[in-house]
Every structure is written in C-alpha cells, then in structure tokens.
C-alpha cells in the first residue's frame, strides 16, 4: 500500500514536468510576441525594445528559458508580470483566497446536496421523487454555468434587487453584518458552481447505489432483520461511496475550471479571472504560472483519487 502511494507520487513528478514542457513550448512557439503591446506603441524605439527583450531574457532560445523557468518555479519564484511589474506569486496569492473560498464552499454544498439526493433517488427508484430528482440532475448539468449565472443575476439582482452581482474583494469580514454582506455577494457564484456539480454527483451516486442494491449482501442484511435505514446507510452507501469519493476528487480540477467562467460573470477577482485578464493583455509569465497551478491541482487530485480508491477498497490489491 505504502509502496503503491510512493510509486504513484513518483509518476506524478515526470507528468508535471512533461505538462510544464508542453505548455512552455506552446507559449514559446506561438506566433504571438509577448512584447506586441509594447511593439504597437511607436514611441518605443527598436533599440529600447531590444533592450527590454534582453532584460527580460527573451532573446535566449526557448529551451534555455524553459529550464530557467522550471528551476525558478520549483523554488517558488514564478517570475515578474509584464503588465503590472509585480511578482507573479504576489498576484496569485492575492487572488487565490477568493477562488478557494468560492470553489471550496461550492464543492461542499454540492456534496451535501448530492449524496442524500442520489441515495433517495436510488432507494425509491422509479417513484415520483426519483423522477423529480433525476430530471433536476439532468437539467442541472445541461445548463451551462454561464447561463445559470446570468439567470440568477436577472432574478435576484435585477428583478428583486436582493443581491449585488459585483463582487467586492475589499470587504473585510470582522463582525456579523460584514459576514452577511460577504455571504450575500458570494452566494450566487457558489450556487452556480455548486448546483452544476451537485447535478453530476447526484447521477453518479444514484448509479453507484443502483449497482449495489440488488447484490447478495444487501439481501443478507435485510434477512438478518436490519432496519431499512441501517441497510441503506451503513451497508449499501458505504460500498457505493468508493467510486463516488474517487469522482469527487477527480471533479475538483473541473470545478476550478468552472470557476473561470463564474468569476468572469460575477467579477470575482480570483485566479480564473486573473487568467482571462492576463490572456487578454498577453501577460505570458502570469498565464504560464496560472495554467501551471491548474495542472498541479489536476495531477494532485488525480493522485488523491487513486490513493482514495486504494485506501477505501481493500479488495483491490496493489503490487
């Protein structure tokens, strides 16, 4: 078991290096000059532009730049932003808490909603409640998050004037009114992300429960005279959760991806919005760093999902 985890960790490192290489190569070979916005300004003479290129190290061949970038990043130095001239890691540290707060709460909400919904839907299969839950789940993940966001804004901000749709990142939470204000501005992004994930997780939970319900051990538990709730919760649910927990872990990077869209709609200053802004301004160091953070998250949670699977299911032997 321990050896399996160590081996899985060791595979993750070359994967990350490969991803960083692919990404850097794409950025370096792309036909866009990172200095194009300086180039568009006629007041900058060509010699000065060359000087800037030299100062930023852009005149070196890209494989050399890649090695420098990777070694610097491994030490926590993400470079300097072309646009704001501040350190990229500062920019990211400013933005990351906003994203983590919205994404984290959204994911917890989705799990809290999805598990009971999936269980009820599977246990009462083909009953009216199951049809309602299944239809909602289907609708939930066919609804594009950006459309859900706009609809929520239309209803709660424009029609009822209950909530603001401009996120204020300067808001400090120090007492109850400010906490309520924070909740009021975060509730729509959280709802949009959370409902989308809840829909997907509900379907997985239901499918997994349905696979386990007709098995022999369930009949044995029933014939021992156990109560329905005990059979469902401590027998069927425990076994059904193994694939679901894996899927919960695998879904985390997708939620961060979804955060890109939600942050754009609600103007949440998170790292997703940072990525879209930096792409718009051609700020290559920031783009590279943010994409790399997404890649690290993806690899980490894939790893976490595999390890969860190994820990939760003792029937699987890893050698």
């Amino acid at each position, binding site marked *: 078991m321990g050896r399996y985890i160590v081996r899985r960790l060791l595979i993750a490192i070359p*994967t990350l290096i490969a991803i960083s290489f692919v990404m850097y190569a794409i950025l370096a070979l792309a036909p866009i000059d990172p200095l194009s916005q300086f180039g568009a300004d006629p007041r900058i003479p060509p010699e000065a532009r060359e000087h800037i290129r030299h100062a930023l190290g852009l005149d070196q061949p890209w494989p050399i730049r890649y090695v420098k970038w990777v070694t610097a990043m491994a030490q926590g130095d993400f470079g300097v932003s072309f646009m704001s001239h501040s350190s990229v890691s500062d920019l990211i540290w400013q933005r990351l808490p906003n994203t983590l707060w919205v994404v984290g709460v959204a994911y917890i909400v989705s799990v809290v909603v999805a598990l009971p919904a999936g269980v009820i839907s599977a246990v009462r299969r083909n009953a009216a409640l199951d049809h309602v839950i299944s239809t909602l789940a*289907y609708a939930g993940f066919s609804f594009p998050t950006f459309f859900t966001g*706009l*609809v929520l804004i239309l209803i709660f901000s*424009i029609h009822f004037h209950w909530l603001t749709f401009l996120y204020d990142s300067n808001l400090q939470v120090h007492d109850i009114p400010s906490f309520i204000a924070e909740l009021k501005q975060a509730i729509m992004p959280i709802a949009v992300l959370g409902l989308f994930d809840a829909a997907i997780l509900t379907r997985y939970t239901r499918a997994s429960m349905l696979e386990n319900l007709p098995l022999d051990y369930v009949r044995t538990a029933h014939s021992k005279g156990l109560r329905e709730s005990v059979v469902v919760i401590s027998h069927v649910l425990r076994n059904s959760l193994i694939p679901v927990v894996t899927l919960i872990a695998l879904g985390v990077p997708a939620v961060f991806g979804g955060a890109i*869209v939600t942050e754009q709609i609600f103007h949440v200053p998170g790292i997703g919005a940072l990525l879209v802004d930096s792409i718009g301004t051609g700020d290559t160091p920031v783009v590279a760093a943010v*994409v790399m953070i997404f890649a690290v998250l993806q690899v980490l949670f894939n790893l976490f999902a595999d390890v969860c699977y190994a820990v939760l299911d003792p029937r699987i032997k890893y050698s």
Partner: protein
Amino acid sequence: MTTAQVELSGSIAVDALSRPARSLWGDAWYTFTRDKLALAGLFTLTFIVLAVLFGPLIWPHTISDIDFKASLQGPSLDHPMGTDDLGRDLLARVLYGGRVSIAVGITAVLVSITLGTAIGAFAGYFSKLDNPLMRLTDLFLSLPVLPLLLVLVYLFRDTLTRTIGPVVGIFVMIVGVISILNWMPVARLVRASFLSLRQREFVEAARCVGSSDARIIFRHILPNALSPVLVAATIGVGGAILTESTLSFLGLGFPPDTPTWGRLLYDSQQYLEFAPHWPLFPGLCIFVVVLAVNYIGDGLRDALDPRRKI
C-alpha cells in the same frame, strides 16, 4: 381436423422462417423507441437542426439588419425573440448562431472520435504500442482543459484568422483544440474493447485464414467495439457545444459579427438590466440541445447494451 392442425403448425413454422432476421441495430432501434425521453430528445434535436438549417432561408430578417429605432426591444410579433442593442433581430441571430454552434459540436466530435478510435485501436491491438500510447493518454488526461483551451485559442487565433480567413480560421481552430483535448475517453473505451476482443475465437479464426492486421481491425474487431463509441460521441456533441459556448462567452470564440449561442450571451451581459430577454433564448437553446443530446445518449446506451435486455 388433423390436417388442419398440421397446416396450422406448418404455417407458423413458415412464418417463423420468413420473418426477417433481427439485427443488432434493429433490436437497438426497437429498445430505443421504447424510451420516451430518448425519443423526445431525438424529436427536439431534429426540430432544432431543421430550424437552424432552413430557418434563415425563410425568416425575413437577417443577422445584420440594423434598426436603431427598434433596439433592445422585448419579444413581439415582428421580433419573436426581441432585438439587440443595434436593433438586430435576435431570432435570426439565434438561428444562424445555432448553425455555427451545432456545426462546431458535430465536427469536433467527429474529429476527436476518429483520433480516439485510432489511438485506442492501435494501443489495444499492437501490444508494443500499448504502453507508450496509454502514457500519452494519461498525460493528456492530466492537462487542465479549459485553461489550456483559452491559451491555445488566444495564441493561434490571429495567425489562423490571417491565413484561412476570420470565420473558417476560428472554426478550424476551435474544432481543432476541442478535439485535441477530448479524444482520451474514447481511446480508453476502444482500447478496452480491443484488448478483450482480440483474444476471441473469431479473431483467431480470421487470423488462421490469413486475414491481414488491417482487415482484422476494420472488419472484425472495430464493428464490435463501436457501440460504446457511439454513446460517447452522442454525449460528446453536447459537451463540445458547451465548450464552444464557454469560449465564445469568455470572448475568445468567433469574431463579434458571427453570432453563436455563447457569443449572444456574452454580448447580452452589458444590457442585462434593459434587455433581460436577450440572454434567455440563446441560453435556452444551448440548454435544450444539450439536454436532448444527453437523453439520446442515455437511450442509445440502454439500447446498445446487450446486458440490459432480458
């Protein structure tokens, strides 16, 4: 009496013999048509596809008729979906946008399915290729899809627009990036089917009579491995339409004068307070198409899975 009975049983026997053989696809269609949701999805999707194909030919307004007197109007008889900030008819734009969105969805899925099937078939059939190809699949599976899509679109948009033209260039690029980042699940499905099918007796028999590898792959194994691919393809169309809309919504899709469903939503953002009807119809179109596609995919899965039949 006896003769009549003999005749009767004889006619039953003849009936049984003359009844057309039930094929896999005939069976699948039979099961599929019993699934009300899947059928409803199929009808809805057919209706929308026909509407976006022929609608722009019939509908009197075009996507570029500017009428400032009628800007930001709600739905009316003349403009059933209202108008945008320049007074352009939104129904015309939604119909035209549907063409683009659905075309992107279908093309992207065709390309990614072909790519995934090819890689999966090679990995599953030739054991030497299995490990390297599957490591490649794992690498692609650990790429962050949406951030990379944004970066790729941003980097290659201008070059492709200049070389092939604004609309075709963006179309090729969006289809390309969606396919490159979405072939992996299909490759895994196809590889798994190939691994189990290549051990079967009929493949051995084919090899014994001297069939070439290509013939075994295309004539014998591939047809047996196709049904999960078909399901994945159907559901993939919905995913690709969502991805294209997301890109357009973030302003990284088609140029502003080409309406797509996502682009219409992106444009509507500034006018939410004055024109709440604007995002409603394109958004509902995306929702309905994706929902229909998902229901069809689920119906197909049930219909094509022989284990579910009793």
